[in-house]
């Protein structure tokens, strides 16, 4: 498609590239000489072919793709509901449907056991905590209130205030942003390709004092 375009353009020489002498032609229209420095980017319709939709506003193309999706089944669906390559790979790994289902069931069963155990432990701890708080309520209401008080995660302790006096403003801001108990900022989803900036060998982790 691109090759056609280029060939046709060379014939009619509507594409103006003043840097390249090959495209300069004596048949070039006079009006285009003022735009010699700029590349003509309007999509010109040639009657035998479709206009190049990659130029200009992609809105129309996106709309068209959304309204009329392709129904040719030659690649996986975008959200993974259909993957044509899985059966072949699975057949090489486990050459039996029954064995695959058995392995799948065993794995899910194991996950279930772990989950139930975790939930049971958590609920046991919660119940004990609830009982303890009920007892505390009966014993001493002041202590109960103190135990129930929620602390502000953004508040700075005395040690942090001391530290903040010695640090730069940007560093103080970094310290404020690292809320204790929140997941670390360094926790990133692994990507398929490395970052454009590369690996930061000079990175120093920042630990907020509790």
């Amino acid at each position: 498609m691109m090759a056609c375009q280029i060939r046709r353009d060379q014939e009619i020489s509507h594409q103006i590239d003043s840097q390249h002498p090959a495209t300069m032609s004596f048949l070039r229209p006079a009006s285009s000489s003022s735009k010699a420095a700029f590349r003509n980017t309007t999509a010109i319709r040639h009657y035998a072919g479709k206009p190049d939709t990659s130029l200009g506003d992609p809105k129309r193309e996106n709309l068209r793709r959304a309204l009329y999706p392709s129904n040719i089944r030659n690649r996986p669906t975008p959200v993974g509901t259909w993957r044509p390559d899985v059966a072949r790979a699975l057949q090489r790994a486990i050459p039996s449907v029954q064995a695959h289902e058995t392995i799948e069931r065993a794995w899910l069963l194991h996950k279930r056991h772990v989950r139930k155990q975790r939930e049971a432990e958590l609920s046991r701890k919660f119940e004990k905590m609830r009982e303890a708080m009920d007892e505390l309520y009966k014993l001493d209401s002041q202590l109960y209130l103190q135990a129930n008080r929620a602390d502000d995660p953004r508040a700075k302790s005395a040690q942090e205030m001391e530290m903040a006096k010695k640090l730069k403003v940007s560093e103080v801001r970094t310290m404020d942003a690292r809320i204790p108990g929140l997941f670390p900022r360094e926790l990133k989803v692994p990507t398929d390709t490395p970052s454009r900036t590369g690996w930061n060998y000079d990175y120093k982790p920042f630990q907020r004092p509790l």
Partner: protein
Amino acid sequence: MLSRTLRAATARPFLVRGNASLSSAPPAAGTPAPPPPPASTTTTATTTTTATPPSAKAAKAPEEGDKAEGGRRKRKVWTPRKRPAISALAPREWNRPLAPGVVPAYDYALKYIQRDAAAVAAEAAELEKRVEEKEGEYQVLLKEGGEGVKEGLEKVDAELEGMREKLHVLRVQAEVNLPEVRWKVKNALAERGREAHRHLLEHRWRKDGDLDLLMERIYQMKVVPDLLPVLKPTVDLRVAVPATTPDQFRALAAQGRAGANVLTVEPGVFLDPKNTLSPPMLYADAFHADTRLYTLLMVDPDVPDPERAGYKTYLHWMCPNVELSAARAGRLTGLNGHTAYVPPHPQRGTPYHRYTVLLLPQPPVRGERYSRNLEARAVREGGVSSRRLDIPVVGEGERAGFDVRKFVEEWGLGVEGGAHMFREVWGAATSKVYEEVLKQPEPVFGRPRKEDRYADIRGRKKYVL
């Protein structure tokens, strides 16, 4: 116009993974057949492993479809895959699909599942003992009777219900993961006495599409609001009729049953009146261990009622007190003893008629709802856990204008049970039904004659000169 990629995709069969391997010869009594030999070290696990029967082999993509005979590719005609002929009449033993060591994950998974199954079975056995003790307590309290005992009795009953529910779950979980059990159910070797097998059968009916299809047809054809407000099937009801039309025989041949002449009716399809001249064959699969009673009804809600300019319901068939249980799965017999079967006779000129077969459950012997306690006690003592209903035979004059909702409310029938529906349009056999069975002149329906507004002035001269 197909693109080249689409045509290629349809010509090559989708990669099909074969079922578990089986030994082709039945094993000697007592000793299960040995697992297939392990794969040789040079080849990968995919190539050898099993003595698969040719029907169960996966479609080996490379060699098919590419027979270059003079450059012409022979296109493969798709035929339905034949399942191996295993059933209760030709039973087989389960084998491991892969030999030990071929896929270590499978070996470990099998061991894990077996260990878990043993642990759950032990727990179930312990709970069963406690249930038996509690049931003993209940029976003692029941014998005592009296007012003061009633509350205690209800409390024990409620506890027992909870324990029995847990026991059911444990019994199912103890076996449901075992590959042997799943294989048996899949290959028509299910033992309906075992709870896990029954559970898997019911799960297959509910989740693999049969119930969905039935409910889709029932809702789309508006059987649910027209006949009854709610239908929640719990029994797998299948209807079969003898095939009569060439299309039906062709459909049977396409299914791979060329010689057969019995057609399993898909819910909602059109049948010819000739198919239903004799009572259709009903196959009901219930999933409860105790024997319960159901009422069979076959009604047509689309019989025209010219007086009211509408439609009325006609009762074609009724049979109360039909016994169903998990052990008794299969063809229902002796159904023509109550209100005899009248073949469907869709009148000429009417749109299609919906013939609905219902198997509605009768109320339980004790209490308002069926419970696990009732089920367990009925199984222990024997007998039936539903109330036997003395429904009077519906006379010939009362079949037309039969009110299904009133009937269900009057006799306390439930919303569960089984349901099925097929449609019919007038055929030559309908005239036969009117002549021989109903012994009435056959009515022909049509639109009322349009009044001719210009009858008066049609012949008269319009212009006077």
